[in-house]
């Protein structure tokens, strides 16, 4: 099975050097692009390959590139390396393990859209990735793979590494642009989209790290080859991860469309002894829960969407039977509450309310109408109701937990309000796994 994204990555995760990268065919894709293809051809190839964004939204990358106006002028490529979605740990591997793959992908993207400057927007905590990227960038500059007249072509590019200072919202591509401009990372109005008005108002393509890492291979091996890697209509391979109480949490490159079961049972070795699977967030914290009955779904954009969730970042979080779904939702909602940029009302004031209700429920102060209130809050924070996708993402695990795990919420509700008035404690029935853990 061909694993283009990770084939160079060493078992000890030491970075692939420039020499090693070139030996394995590195920078051939860039060479092909700048010496044998017009920029529009490079865009067309990526379009034909049907590469879709790996950051969560799944927008076709070639289409995104083709929306950049062709007129000359300052344009930018920006790489979204602000990996911060809880449960997501894929871009780190690509940047630490094979930084040149990313650099080559950026160079091709820049050539395709006519940019001479690119920025890698890296989250501040990824210090090892920062060191390795800086080193690789220097290697590339020294080898004239960056700079002026790259590979002898009429193509100039420099790439700057920009390290951020925290905040999940920076992963939203327009918030990222504001942050890159040195401002508060509030998302921007869309339209205009970054392709027409992005960084410093100039046409800009913002792509996720993994997305960009696919590009060199597509250019080198062709669109047909790339589409053939997949097991579904979504092309290529994808980094899939599993975390939680599985035997072997980890990250694997697999064909797009690999069934979830293979991922959890084969790759991750199934659940740890003594735990059973209750559900999972298939693509990070901002995706809807799915259940064991969904294990045979293909991991691709459309299959998961049809099942009521999203592929997201493709890194799944597994819920076991000893972890209370209410508490996991509280953890997630606290995260989103804390990371709300404070710009729009449903997110800024709705999320703290969700947390307040969940805390109340867990503290035995819940009321039957609280669950309806949570459902309404999830609706209020839904897509189109807020300024950006942060709160709709926060609503996804909440609304699906209410749908699939309603009895878990209900078990915390006092049987009768009078009970608490009399000072009697409501005894919360234990989950199966909790009972086991308590030795009962």
């Amino acid at each position, binding site marked *: 099975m061909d694993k283009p994204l990770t084939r160079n990555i060493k078992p000890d995760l030491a970075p692939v050097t420039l020499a090693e990268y070139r030996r394995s065919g590195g920078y051939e894709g860039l060479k092909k692009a700048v010496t044998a293809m017009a920029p529009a051809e490079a865009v067309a190839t990526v379009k034909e390959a049907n590469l879709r964004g790996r950051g969560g939204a799944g927008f076709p990358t070639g289409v995104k590139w083709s929306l950049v106006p062709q007129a000359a002028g300052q344009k930018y490529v920006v790489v979204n390396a602000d*990996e911060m979605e809880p*449960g*997501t740990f894929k871009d780190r591997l690509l940047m630490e393990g094979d930084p040149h793959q990313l650099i080559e992908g950026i160079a091709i993207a820049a050539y395709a859209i006519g940019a001479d400057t690119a920025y890698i927007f890296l989250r501040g905590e990824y210090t090892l990735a920062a060191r390795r990227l800086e080193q690789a960038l220097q290697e590339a500059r020294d080898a004239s793979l960056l700079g002026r007249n790259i590979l002898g072509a009429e193509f100039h590019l420099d790439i700057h590494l920009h390290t*951020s200072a925290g905040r999940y919202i920076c992963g939203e591509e327009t918030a990222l642009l504001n942050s890159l*401009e*040195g401002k*508060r990372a509030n998302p921007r109005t869309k339209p205009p989209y970054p392709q027409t008005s992005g960084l410093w108002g100039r046409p800009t393509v913002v792509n996720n790290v993994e997305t960009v890492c696919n590009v060199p291979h597509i250019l080198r091996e062709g669109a047909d080859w790339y589409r053939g890697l997949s097991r579904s209509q979504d092309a290529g391979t994808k980094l899939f991860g599993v975390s939680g109480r599985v035997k072997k949490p980890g990250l694997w490159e697999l064909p797009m469309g690999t069934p979830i079961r293979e991922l959890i049972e084969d790759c991750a070795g199934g659940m740890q002894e003594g735990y059973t699977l209750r559900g999972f967030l298939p693509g990070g914290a901002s995706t809807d829960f799915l259940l064991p009955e969904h294990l045979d779904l293909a991991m691709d954009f459309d299959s998961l969407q049809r099942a009521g969730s999203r592929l997201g970042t493709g890194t799944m979080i597994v819920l076991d039977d000893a972890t209370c779904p209410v508490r996991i939702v509280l*953890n997630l909602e606290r995260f989103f509450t804390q990371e709300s940029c404070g710009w729009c009302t449903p997110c800024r004031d709705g999320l703290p309310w969700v947390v307040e209700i969940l805390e109340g429920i867990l503290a035995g102060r819940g009321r039957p109408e609280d669950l309806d209130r949570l459902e309404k809050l999830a609706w209020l924070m839904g897509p189109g109701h807020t300024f950006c996708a942060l709160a709709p993402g926060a609503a996804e695990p909440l609304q699906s937990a209410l749908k699939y795990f309603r009895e878990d919420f209900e078990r915390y509700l006092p049987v009768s309000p009078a009970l608490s008035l009399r000072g009697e404690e409501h005894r919360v029935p234990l989950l199966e796994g909790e009972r086991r853990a308590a030795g009962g």
Partner: protein
Amino acid sequence: MDDKNNKPIPLTESEAAEIRAAASHYPDPSAASIEALKIVQKHRRWVSDNNLQAVAELLGLSAAELDGIATFYNLIYRKPVGEKVIHYCDSVSCWMLGAERIREHISKRLGIGLGETTADGRFTLLPIVCLGACDRAPAMMIGDELYGDLDEASVDAILTREDRHG
């Protein structure tokens, strides 16, 4: 860092030079605002009002605007922190696998709660969102170092080592 009168210099020449170098990567120097604050932190651990005003002046921003930026981002410290900041991940995968237990252990061992600094000024304990090490949960960072697969014993060993070095 201090002049003869013990009055803190808001920005040393070398800090200013680093900030100017960072600003050269952007068409607008104010884009280096966050980087500039990080440079100050690298030298002084945190950003005081004086430092902030000096950086603002250097980048052509008002103090209010720069502080608006500084207080947006969680890795910019506007209050003193210890020599090393312990960031323990409290996001979902780590939480599921015992992050809270790890946090309690660190607190007990160092005698500090969240947001507090040890009496010797060595460590500050702060939560952090997902460190992208979910396959090695629970995880934490101390300074620039990432540690995964934590348990009480490994935390003890790490804290001992970190306390001894640098």
